[in-house]
């Protein structure tokens, strides 16, 4: 089997093919659909899958000129931001305690927190609904938003705990000790040493939660009884009910751009904050 030696480049081919086929090409298709529009046969520039289309930016103006769409964006991002903030507030202490705990030998405690992730998502959401019903959260439909929020936090909490835990675990103890030796009080040590050092974990947690929460409409449909509409639902309607792939792709693209901007800003934020060595890397 001496002939079966591959160079690093050759080993990379399957991955490159995978990325092109399942990431780059679909993304290009989304862009293509977003910037084209269905036109009556005869006046088309070209055809996609037998459908006469021509280039247009009217998809975007159509989207932004509709008040309901702007409201959906606000609701979705509001929901996503609140979810992310609450998740961080809950997850940070958990991750911190887990990382420092003597009882967490072999990560058993961590696994207990991650465990819900391995149970089917739909089942978890349905169970959450029964639980919320039991404690009386469905007495009025004005609780729909809160119920959705609880469901989102519950479902995405493991995604926040994991990166935070791995980053905090890797922070060198001697930084905190040095800070204490130099006379800083514990909270001061936390704010100016531990927190900045764990910033990569926070950023990665945010990126894992922010976008999915704007689109996971299964949770808002089940727990919010369909009273809370988020962007994901709009995309679904455009694709499935209206058969308008162009408008659907436009919304997806708008969402992508907003996320890119927020990621770019948060990335910038951490970069500037601390250039020192010894910053714990994620994973």
């Amino acid at each position, binding site marked *: 089997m001496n002939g079966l030696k591959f160079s690093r480049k050759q080993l990379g081919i399957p991955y490159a093919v995978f990325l092109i086929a399942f990431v780059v090409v679909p993304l290009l298709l989304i862009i293509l659909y977003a910037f084209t529009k269905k036109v009556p046969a005869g006046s088309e520039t070209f055809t996609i899958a037998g459908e006469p289309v021509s280039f247009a930016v009217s998809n975007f103006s159509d989207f932004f000129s509709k*008040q*309901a769409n702007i409201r959906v964006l606000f609701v979705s991002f509001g929901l996503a931001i609140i979810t992310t903030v609450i998740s961080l507030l809950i997850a940070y202490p958990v991750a911190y305690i887990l990382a420092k705990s003597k009882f967490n030998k072999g990560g058993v405690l961590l696994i207990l927190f991650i465990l819900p992730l391995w149970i089917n998502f739909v089942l978890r959401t349905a169970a959450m609904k029964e639980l919320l019903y039991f404690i009386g959260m*469905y007495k009025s439909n004005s609780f*729909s938003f809160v119920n959705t929020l609880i469901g989102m936090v519950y479902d995405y909490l493991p995604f926040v705990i994991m990166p935070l835990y791995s980053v905090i675990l890797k922070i060198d103890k001697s930084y905190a000790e040095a800070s204490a030796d130099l006379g800083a009080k514990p909270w001061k040590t936390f704010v100016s040493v531990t927190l900045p050092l764990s910033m990569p974990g926070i950023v990665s947690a945010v990126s894992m939660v922010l976008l999915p929460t704007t689109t996971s409409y299964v949770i808002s449909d089940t727990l919010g009884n369909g009273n809370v509409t988020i962007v994901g*639902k709009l995309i679904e309607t455009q694709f499935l*009910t*209206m*058969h308008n792939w162009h408008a659907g792709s436009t919304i997806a693209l708008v969402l992508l751009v907003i996320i890119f901007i927020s990621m770019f800003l948060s990335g910038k934020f951490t970069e500037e904050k601390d250039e020192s060595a010894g910053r714990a890397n994620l994973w």
Partner: protein
Amino acid sequence: MKRFFKLFASFSLLFSLFSLYGEGEVIELKVYNWEDYISIDDGSGESVDLIKKFEQHCKEKFNLNVKVKYSTFGTLENMYNELMLTRTAKEDGSYTYAYDLVCPSDYMVQKMILEGMVEKYDYTIEEGKLGYINGYYDNASKFIVDLFKKYGWQDYATGYMWGTMGFVYNPEVITKLPGYTEGDEKHWSFIWKEYAKNLGTIKDSIRDTYALALGYVYSEELATLRKSYESGSLTKAQYADKIVEIFNRADEESVKKVEEALSVLKENIYGFEVDSGKKDMATGKIAINFAWSGDAVYTLDTADEDENGAKLYYAVPEEGSNIWFDGWVMPKGANVPLAQEFLNFLSQPENAKANMDFIGYTSVIAGNEMFENCVDNYGTYVMVECEAPKEGEAAEKAEEKPAEGEEKAEAEGEEEEEEPKPFLDKESGKYYCDKYVGELSEEELNKFKNADGTYNFLYPDYDKDDNVTGMHKEENVTLYKNDLNYFFANKTTDAAEEKTDFTVITDTIGRQCSTQYPTEDIVARCAIMKHFDDEQMLRLNNMWDEVKVSSSGMSMVVPVIIVVLTCLVFAIVAIMKRR
């Protein structure tokens, strides 16, 4: 490497040979249907696997090796997308589709016909040959066939299941609410009522909820129409046309009115759903559910089977409602004779019965056999005194198992299936048989009759295998006649049916019987949903978005966004300053 390739090549050759000559010529029939919409073997031993049975039928009758490739969809829109994605273009610019048979609903059937996606039925095939489609017309209800003819779909579609839309409700909860007046549930305004706050659900589907709101918005116009129909100034056909027109309005004014009505309704309901309503209703989370009649039967059954379940009812609003059906169409490029044979097979009463028992929806197949099934399921059976089993038999039995009524009934049941099994009441020492009230003579019935026209009956208790295990008394029972002649009697070709009267007599109204088979009076006020064009659909969708995204959530969200944005600005300013 070379050797490996050789090996691989020879293997693949072997496999291809297998598929060519291994099983003989196999014809595939690709059927695309709703989820849970055909009888399959669920392991209970009672259901029939219709797909396997059809394959067998083809083998036996036509000596054909047919393999049914059966796949399912969850929404019509998904189905349409799938058809579009898997079609292949022909040289002349037309398309052929990847399925032989598809089962869409009313407005989608119309859309597919309009877009030229479906094949015409071939009526020239003679009886006894493969694909004799008149087998469907021999058995289908004339009512459904006429409906299809009226809209010009009979060349392209045959019916499968049908029903109405209305409210499933829990009278135990509703009637106790302050503000409830009797008969509220028979109007569209029911779910808008203040006392129904957080108790009702509507469909998270544009077309169905739009129809609901139209019924509410135009309830006065509909009520006036109904009055003039009842007074005789409108004929049945005129009335039907008017109703269809109202329930398919999509002009800007109607959409605007619907938007206002739905915005109000949104604040009053528990939520939107498509599937969870059945469960929520049966478990008592909600008390009103806007539902399709098929789902309503399922919900009522589920609640009945549950010991703590409530006695639920179903009502179709008096102003008029929607009548829906699912029909079979053959997309272009289908194997027409084989597809038609499948429909012919499904139209045989025994198979239609198996389907109905399994799915719980109402089949379009009519006739005596289907009617008897309906009576068996929903007719009222009471216990009447009957003759003791013959001397010898009884003595024999008594020796074996003295005074054990149940066992006796069971043992006898095995011997002669058809005869009613006498049940020995230990207290009185008399024998009773369970009998359908419709079979009792006037004289017999009068024995149970009270002065006010109600009845006192002895009801049988059944075990799982439908054996009588006991009986209980109920007083002041009212009997209703559910006249279903319009549906069952007019079998298209079989005019010489022996049976002349198709009326089910039951002791309840508004329960499973009238849900599954609405009376003629209900059907007369139900309209069919028509296909909306792109412009109308866009208008509806815009309205729907406005309704679904109400501004109520905004009050909670806007402050958060403002806080976050200010934080961001501060952070950026801080970064800039550092530089």
